[in-house]
């Protein structure tokens, strides 16, 4: 298997790292080499967060360079657009349409652009815009939007559905497993239509 590069982009507190953990544990179970990278520290407190997940036969660098992401998984629309240059030609964008105001917008220093979605759609690649928040609420908890996104990506990867389910059971606390499995399947279906 050639190396697959998945770039996850969102806002601190959205569960980007937990989603990354599901990808890495699925890759290990599939006997692949895998690396994941993120930066802690200042990325908390409502700042932008990106996480790089790479898996394949042999992976050296833990980071994905601009123009090399096979998948850009946006947890928020502005963060999706901010990282769009990381997508490779022929890559796939899957993003949650939700909007979270950055502190610069909340404080009136800057404005949240109203053309974010049109600019993403204009990238010339396959783009899937998902109502991640709505599907998460449907699954039973707004905080499961991260697992909705994992579900959406999973349908593009040649790894069995049961493997994803097993790892979601392992990674999440027992009482949240059922609703997250539901979130996973809602995400998986959302990109099939």
């Amino acid at each position, binding site marked *: 298997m050639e190396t697959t590069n998945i770039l996850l982009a969102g806002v601190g507190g959205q569960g980007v790292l937990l989603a990354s953990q599901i990808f890495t544990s699925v890759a290990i179970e599939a006997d692949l080499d895998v690396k994941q990278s993120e930066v802690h520290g200042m990325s908390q*407190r409502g700042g932008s967060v990106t996480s790089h997940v790479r898996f394949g036969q042999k992976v050296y660098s833990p980071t994905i360079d601009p123009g090399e992401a096979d998948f850009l998984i946006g947890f928020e629309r502005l963060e999706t657009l901010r990282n769009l240059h990381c997508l490779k030609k022929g890559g796939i964008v899957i993003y949650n349409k939700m909007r979270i105001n950055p502190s610069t917008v909340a404080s009136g220093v800057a404005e949240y652009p109203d053309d974010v979605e049109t600019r993403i759609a204009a990238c010339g690649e396959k783009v899937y815009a998902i109502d991640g928040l709505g599907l998460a609420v449907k699954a039973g908890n707004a905080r499961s939007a991260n697992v909705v996104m994992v579900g959406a990506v999973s349908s593009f990867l040649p790894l069995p559905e049961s493997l994803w389910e097993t790892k979601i059971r392992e990674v999440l606390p027992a009482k949240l497993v059922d609703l997250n499995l539901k979130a996973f399947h809602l995400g998986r279906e959302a990109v099939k239509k």
Partner: protein
Amino acid sequence: MSEQKAILSGNEAIARGAWEAGVKLASAYPGTPSTEILENVKNYTDIYSEWAPNEKVALEVGVGSAIAGARTLVTMKHVGVNVAADPLFTLSYTGVKGGLVLVSADDPAMHSSQNEQDNRNYGRSAKIPVIEPSDSQECKDFVAIALDLSEKFDTPVFFRTTTRTSHSKSIVALGGRTEQQGDIELEKNMPKYTMLPSSARLRHPLVEERLLKLKEYAETSPLNRVEYNDTSMGFICNGISYQYVKEALPEVSVLKLGLSYPLPEKKIREFAARVDKLYIVEEGDPFFEDQIRALGIKVDHGKDMFPLTGEFSAAFVKKQVTGQGPDLRAVAEGLPGRPPAFCPGCSHRGIFTILKKLKVFVSGDIGCYTLGALPPISALHSCVCMGASISMGHGIDKVVAKSDDYSQKVVSVIGDSTFFHSGMTSLLNSIYNKSASVAMILDNRTTGMTGGQENPGSGRTLSGEEAIAADIPALVKAMGVKNVVKINPYDLNDIEEKLKAALENEEMTVVVVEAPCVLRYRISKPPLKVDAEKCTGCKRCLSVSCNALSLEVKDDKKFVVIDPNMCAGCGVCAQVCKFDAIGE
């Protein structure tokens, strides 16, 4: 037994490596990107572990443990080594009994730091070996090798990671714990451990001899590895740069230095002779390059191609060497930034709202409150290093002409953990030398910026046991400060009144703000609401920089809304509103 494997960050792997190699004691002060090492060590109950108030103390605790005979791990971020440098340089002379590994987590590109110093230089200056892992497996395995080296050569070992090795995760094969020692029995060995000039003079030649022996060891060490492929290009690299070179240029020959100091001269000469063109790829300083050039070896490309600043990547290495890269899309322009900000409900928000209003010079320090420098607050005017706020404020106060103009007055701002770290000595100096400055100690009962670790004021140890919580007002009074004032950080009038009184005072005032971190202790009150009828859309409340607030426009009317899921009900925004539009 089948081999167990796990995906671990470099920091998790170092903790695991310490456990497997029989470490008995670990000490650290938190600092990105090193913090998670001890947070993971604490889960291995075979190791006694603790947070120290600063890196110097952490290392000294480690020195005690190592000369008593126990295998020891001490960890810190790169700038922490500056604080610990005093014991480090003399520890080089005394050597150890049980192995001692000092982890320095460097931060090229300054993801969360005030500088990007290259701490390999410390190894050279202190004359001790430097080990650099390039992934999590090496992070784990090299800890055991480092401890063996430490004991074999009677030296502390410097273990340098960078943010990418500390925080990236990769697959690690796990092993069990090997106990290296039985019960530790204390022995006396004065000439070795009492560094009076007479004994230190006898130790220094041994340090120089040790370095020669380490140079010999470097030639055959498993830490240094040659991978010959196409010999038209040869790359000498270390740590994460090895991964970038292998990803970018799989066909080239590589000399990977896991032991970065001292260098294996013969091995480098041999490698240089076999390859047509020699490249050196190292983030930070030309540490290898300068030494290799000094040996008279021709280096074709080093810092001319791979800069002194920032981080590299696989694509960057490829681009620099071959000129090739992927087709790049344009970076989206005109997007609002998303910098970190004070959390909703944070006790620092009200303080900085008033500091900004008073237009004083704010002498800052290292912690969450450093975010007070970012717009729209923009009210923190200096930040150099841990503990510097009070001492710098004192220096400013001594030279600036006395004036009633607040812009000529200084208020130092420091957090509890930073105060314990090195602010206490600064304050002692200020009060001893009759400072007239104002110092604010923002005590939120945690080490916030690194993710909420315990500290000597939080009432708990690293392992979660109850501990004595230092009493900051009592401490400050004991130093001789007469004017110790407490304020409520959620009452803007209280802050303003007491700060003004402190600024008018000709004697030093210490303002103590006791308000636990809302994030760490999950504190929140019912969310507030905006009365859209009363709101004029003046944006005054937005100036307190809270992510729970945003401006909406409906039917040409502008008004602010509060996200009930984010609002912690702190009431700071309501107090700045001139139209009484924000309430419960």
